[in-house]
């Protein structure tokens, strides 16, 4: 891998996923194909030369022609409000990547695959699910996805549609704050009982990816290790926007 140089991507489209989350569809001319789970660094420059950098997970499959970043607007953020509220098609966005060689999955890594997401932590996991779909692999995969409310479920329609044509993909939602009337699904934070019901048995030597807020990631990783998962096959990332090592 050579130097990761900064380049200008064209903003082709921007799609509201929820009230706080937007996907940016980017065209990047000189792009080394990423692996699902990787992220990019984004750099904003003000007129006086002031710059701010952040990392964002890639949401699109490596096979897709355009790059998708999905960004949650953080209430006191500096970069995410700009990306969600200000940036529009026709603008350019400076970025470099792809970055990260650990929290990644390709079909060759096998499974069964357990993906556990909290909120916008679903973004790098969605890239894995889309990669899976793009190459029509049958690696058995379960996504356990914790959102606050029904309307906060990122990629909701796509996550409804994908399992319909693919018996090897299952999606289980839990809504922790508020549930719509008639909601038959889970309605609490992910706990041991939920994992016992949803997670692959440890005997299947599953591969687990967990991404979300620190508390959730810590708790789920510890619970999975307690259920007999090999710690070396539990990969964690705290929040989509800040991937990578400390």
């Amino acid at each position, binding site marked *: *891998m050579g130097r990761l140089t900064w380049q*200008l991507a064209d903003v082709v489209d921007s799609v509201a996923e929820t009230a706080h989350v937007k996907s940016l569809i980017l065209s990047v001319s000189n792009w080394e194909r990423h692996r699902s789970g990787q992220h990019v660094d984004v750099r904003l*420059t*003000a007129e006086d030369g002031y710059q701010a*950098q952040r990392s964002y997970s890639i949401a699109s499959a490596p096979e897709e022609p355009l790059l998708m970043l999905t960004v949650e607007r953080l209430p006191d953020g500096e970069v995410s409000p*700009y990306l969600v509220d200000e940036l529009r098609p026709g603008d350019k966005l400076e970025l470099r990547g792809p970055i990260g*060689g650990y929290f990644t999955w390709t079909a060759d890594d096998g499974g069964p695959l357990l993906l556990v997401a909290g909120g916008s932590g679903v973004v790098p996991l969605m890239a894995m699910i889309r990669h899976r779909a793009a190459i029509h692999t049958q690696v058995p995969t379960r996504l356990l996805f914790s959102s606050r409310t029904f309307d906060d479920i990122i990629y909701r329609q796509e996550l409804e549609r994908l399992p319909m044509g693919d018996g090897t993909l299952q999606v289980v939602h839990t809504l922790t704050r508020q549930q719509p009337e008639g909601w038959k699904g889970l309605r609490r934070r992910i706990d041991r009982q939920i994992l016992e019901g949803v997670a692959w048995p440890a005997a299947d030597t599953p591969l687990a990816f967990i991404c979300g807020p620190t508390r959730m990631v810590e708790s789920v990783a510890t619970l999975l290790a307690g259920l007999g998962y090999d*710690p070396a096959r539990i990969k964690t990332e705290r929040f989509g926007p800040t991937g990578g*090592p400390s």
Partner: protein
Amino acid sequence: MNARFISRGFTGRRSAAADPSRLPPGQHVVPDFPVLSAGPTPHTPQEKWDFAVDGHVASPQRWTWEEFYNLPRESITVDIHCVTKWSKLDTRWEGISVDTLLETVEPLGAFLVAHCDGGYTTNLPLEDATGGKAWVAFRYDDEPLEPEHGGPARLLVPHLYFWKSAKWVRRLEIVDQDEPGFWETAGYHNRGNPWLEERYWGD
């Protein structure tokens, strides 16, 4: 190439609290202490915890928790810089200087590999770990270091990006040849000097 590129409509919100001279390029100050690790947090009980310095040395050493905890300790107040762009200023630690740990072992190689519970490794040239530049820290902000932040003990190498400050460290292995560690073989820079913005391979 992009020196003149301006992000339309971006004004930025400079960290008013921070002295810009303390902030390496591309970093911003955070008030909290984010937790980042690649896998589950290991929980090694103190009675099973020990610390070793070995490899290419004249006389390998091993300490129990009790012995280690009672070595001459130092208080350190430093700024830390994570490669994921956050920096935290004036963090307060207590621990044992790597200089103290190496005193009796007499290293014969020029590099070290830090080995941690959970299998994590990171590499340093000895000159980045000696001369008052690195510690094995077991207290943070006047409290025992919490497991999710690397407790019982973590390496503290504040002049490099924080992934070099390996959590849950148990062993320093002295080696003759540099051996890139966990993140260093996964796309991240081998040295990681934040002031040169050495984030990734090729930076």
